[in-house]
Structure formats: structure tokens, C-alpha cells
């Protein structure tokens, strides 16, 4: 309990912008994950995955559906353990949920019975911050994601894009040094997605957490990330890693798509991704393996 209180005090003085150090490095070393299916078969989701995300790096993982992208995130977050290999966060092997992690889920993970304010305040409340202080922090974060005035609403009263903002604020309020995002904007319409991507970049540039961003949208990956990792169709392995040398700050993600360098990178990575997408599609369509 003592240590929690100490951390909280630190939190109050500086709610954002911790200097990022080695504690934000993500390292997967020979990671394999197997599941037992209900029928008793063994299903290999990840096979010998080696992946490094440097502190403060925005790392996007692309791959066809069902290639184990999401599994990677649950392993890094400590919600699940690898069957073989090690996952390290900040040099320490992950054997429980590490502190300093934020997770934005694919579907809404907001408590429908709590107000927007209470949802965002959950992180500090769980860490033992007093309710009033937690709510003040939450109010500030809602303002930052452009939802001032919506504190007393319930999630079902908000649009999909607004709910995503709440989820972002709820994850970022803990000032995570690592932000895990599992196709966070997958369910949004194209325009909302573009707006949310810009806002995410704006927020990320303020505190520079290490981001592991899962998506199946290559354009989104290139527009946002410093590094794009291509995964093979299941069992997931790392096929190729591309460093994105587009300058930062990127500006509007809608416009960067027309830059010649963007198109060049897109073509290059798509070459690699296409085979995997086709293989995954042939499999789900019942075609030859």
C-alpha cells in the first residue's frame, strides 16, 4: 500500500510527461503461444515471435485477420502468458500485469453503468487516489480529448467516436509509459477514424509512450507509426519490419497519404503483406492451403 501512495504523490505533481527511459522498452524473444481449443486440439497462435519496440517508439503491427496480432498484446499486457519464450517490458520478464501500461481495446471496454467521468477516473481510483483528486484528473483528461461538458453522460449516450475518446482518456490518465492498442479505431467510420488518428498522434506527441498498435489497415499503420511490423497468416510470425522515415510531426493523416514517400513505402510493404492476406483469405474461404 505504501508504495502506491508514494507513486500517487508523484502523479499529482506531474500528471503527464515523464521522461521516457528504458522502462518503456518492449521485447518479445522467441515467443510462442498455443491454445487448447474446446475440441481438445492445440492451436498455435504465435510461433517464435521476436519483436522489439524501443522506448517512445510508435510501432504498428499489421497482418491478416486471425494471425495472432491481438494475442501479442495480451502477452505484453500480462493478461496471458506465453507458452514458450519470454516477454520483457522495461527489461523485466512479464509474469503479472506490469504497472505503467495502458490498453485500448478493440470493442468498448467502458463500464456502461458508470458516468463518463467515473469511467475515466477508474485508473486513479484503482491506484488508491482519493475520489475528488481522481475526478479532477479525469475532468482534465476529458477536456484534453475534447469532451468537456459530457462528464455526466453514460457511455450509451455517446457516439462511437466519443466513446473511443473516453477510452483513450481512461487509458492515458494513468500516464502509461507503454500504450497497447488493439485495432482501436476498427469499428469507426472512415472520417471519424481519420479525426481520431490525428488526435491520437497529438496526444502521443505530448507524452511519447511506447505504442504497440495493432491494425489490419496498412495505410493507418504507415501514417501513424515509426515502425511497421508485418505478421504472417496464422500461426503468426514476424515476416518483415519496416522503418517509416516520414518526418514528424506528421500532420493530418488524410493528407500524408498523397506524399510520394508514403506511396513508395505503401507499395513496398503491401508486396510483403499481400501474400499473407491472400493465404489467410484462401484458408477462410476453404481453398487449398
Amino acid at each position, binding site marked *: 500500500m505504501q508504495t502506491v501512495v508514494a507513486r500517487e504523490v508523484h502523479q499529482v505533481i506531474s500528471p503527464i510527461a515523464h521522461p521516457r527511459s528504458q522502462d518503456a522498452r518492449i521485447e518479445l524473444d522467441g515467443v510462442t503461444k498455443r491454445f487448447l481449443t474446446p475440441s481438445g486440439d492445440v492451436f498455435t497462435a504465435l510461433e517464435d515471435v521476436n519483436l522489439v519496440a524501443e522506448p517512445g517508439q510508435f510501432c504498428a503491427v499489421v497482418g491478416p485477420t486471425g494471425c495472432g496480432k491481438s494475442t501479442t498484446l*495480451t502477452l505484453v499486457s500480462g493478461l496471458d502468458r506465453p507458452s514458450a519464450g519470454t516477454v520483457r517490458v522495461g527489461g523485466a520478464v512479464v509474469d503479472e500485469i506490469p504497472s505503467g501500461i495502458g490498453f485500448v481495446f478493440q470493442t468498448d471496454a467502458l463500464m456502461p453503468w458508470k458516468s463518463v467521468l467515473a469511467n475515466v477516473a477508474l485508473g486513479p481510483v484503482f491506484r488508491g487516489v482519493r475520489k475528488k483528486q481522481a475526478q479532477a484528473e479525469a475532468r482534465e483528461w476529458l477536456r484534453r480529448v475534447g469532451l468537456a461538458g459530457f462528464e455526466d453522460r453514460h457511455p450509451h449516450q455517446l457516439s462511437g467516436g466519443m466513446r473511443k475518446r473516453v477510452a483513450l482518456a481512461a487509458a492515458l490518465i*494513468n500516464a502509461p509509459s507503454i500504450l497497447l492498442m488493439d485495432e482501436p479505431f476498427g469499428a469507426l467510420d472512415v472520417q471519424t477514424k481519420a479525426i481520431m488518428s490525428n488526435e491520437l498522434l497529438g496526444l502521443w506527441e505530448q507524452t511519447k509512450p511506447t505504442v504497440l498498435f495493432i491494425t489490419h489497415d496498412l495505410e493507418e499503420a504507415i501514417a501513424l507509426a515509426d515502425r511497421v511490423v508485418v505478421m504472417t497468416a496464422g500461426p503468426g510470425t514476424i515476416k518483415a519490419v519496416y522503418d517509416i522515415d516520414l518526418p514528424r510531426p506528421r500532420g493530418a493523416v488524410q493528407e500524408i497519404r498523397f506524399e510520394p514517400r508514403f506511396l513508395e513505402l505503401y507499395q513496398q510493404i503491401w508486396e510483403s503483406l499481400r501474400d499473407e492476406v491472400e493465404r489467410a483469405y484462401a484458408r477462410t474461404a476453404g481453398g487449398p492451403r
Partner: protein
Amino acid sequence: MSTVALTETAIADAARRRRRTRRAVVWFARALTLLVILGGWELFADEKIIDPFFYGQPSGIFDQLKLWVEHGTAYGSIWLQIWVTLKEAILGFAYGVAGGIVFGVALGQVRFLADVLGPYIKIINALPRIVLGSIFFVAFGLGTTSKVLLASVLVFFVVFFNAFQGVREVDRNLVANARVLGASRWQVVRNVVIPSALVWIIASLHVAFGFSIIGAIVGEFLGAQKGLGLVIATSQNNFNPDGVFGAMVIIGVVALTAEAFIAQLERRLLAWRPPSPSETGLA
């Protein structure tokens, strides 16, 4: 602009008027249904098509209720009988609900406990638990204890199964999210599991209160010194169907009042839910 506003109010007025008319028609039809049933009963009893000796008569039931209110029953005033039964039912309800929630959440959370105790709970649930009333009567006698116990056993299983199911249905995503945000196991239970199981638990309360009244009445039936169950048993022994129906009317009124309270509680606790059109139908 003004013509648009005008037509809008006109449309709104028309819709409101239609709704009011419909409500009036529904209430009229309801009153008519009651009148037909009670009137038919009264009439057929007068004509001896239905034998009032066995099946009573609305006017007889009314006279019986009046007699109870004015002169009391053989065991004291009618209000005392209602109070005794209500007290037993409420106590049984409270114990049963508390036990059901605690065990339901515990077994829903701890897989091992559920696997070990699951079959036994199923067996006990399959037994006709009302028979336990006899055991409680022998063990605890004529007082309130045996009735409260019977009522709480009946209530327990209803609430338990719903709480258990509710805990099992909790969104895994919400639990994962809370854990990543730093929640301890207890914080997860308090902030995620119980609130989301509450929808299931509250749904069971409607049925559970009915069961608590059944428990109290049957318990009194088996042996008591006071209470509506005893009033019914006495009426039965005196070949007085009006007395049985009269007590039934009283229980019905009590149960409906309790139901209204539970509905109120439900609205308060589940205020966060988006309004669903189905809820307005039977309100």
C-alpha cells in the same frame, strides 16, 4: 419558419392526443374485464350454476373482508395477521437475497468452488424444498423462525442461480480493462462483476419476493399461532371458501405493493441503462 413550427406542434399534439385516447381505452377494457369476471362469478353463484358453498362468491368475500376489518379474526386483528406474515416474508427475503448474492458471486468467481459444489446445489434445487417446511416446523416450532427459514430457502435458490449466471456473463473485456488499469481482485469484483451481475440479480427479485410470501404462508399453514396462512387454514377447516379467497385478496394486494417497491428499486439501481421500448409495455 412559423408555418413549419406550427405543423410540428400540430403533429405533436395529435400524437399526444392519440396516446391519451389509447391509454383511456386500455384502462376501460381492463375495468370491463374485471367487471365481467366478478359479475359473472356473482351471477352464476346466485343462480347456483357455481356452488357458492365450494367456490365462494364475490359479495361473500367482500363481507368476509369487512368482518375481518371490523371485528378481527379469531387470532387478533387482521392487521396483526398481515404484519406477522409480511415480517416473515421480508426477513426471509432479506436473508435469502443476501445469501444468494454472496454464494452466487463467490461460486461465479471461484471456478473450483463451483465445480465442487455445483452438483450438490443442483440436487438440492431439484428437491421439492417446500417439504423442508415440515423439518423447520419440527425443529423450530410455531414461532416465526421456521417460516423465515422456509421463505429464505425458497428465495435463496432463485437469487443464487441468477447471481451465478450474472457473474458468468460478465464481459471479459471489462475485467481485462479493469485489471490493466490496476484493479485488485476485490476491486474487479466490486467495480465490474457485481454491477454487471446486478441486472440479473434484480430480475430475480421479482420472482423471489413471490417465493418469500409462499414460504411464509406455507410455513404458517403447517403450524402457527398467527398469520394469514393460519387464517387460510382455519377458513379451510370451517368450509369457508370466502375466507380463503379473502386472505388471497389480501396477499395479492401485499404482493403487488411489494412488486411496486422492487420496480422502484430497479429503476433507481439500473438508471444507467438505455431506455428499451419493451419496458414500457408491462409497466
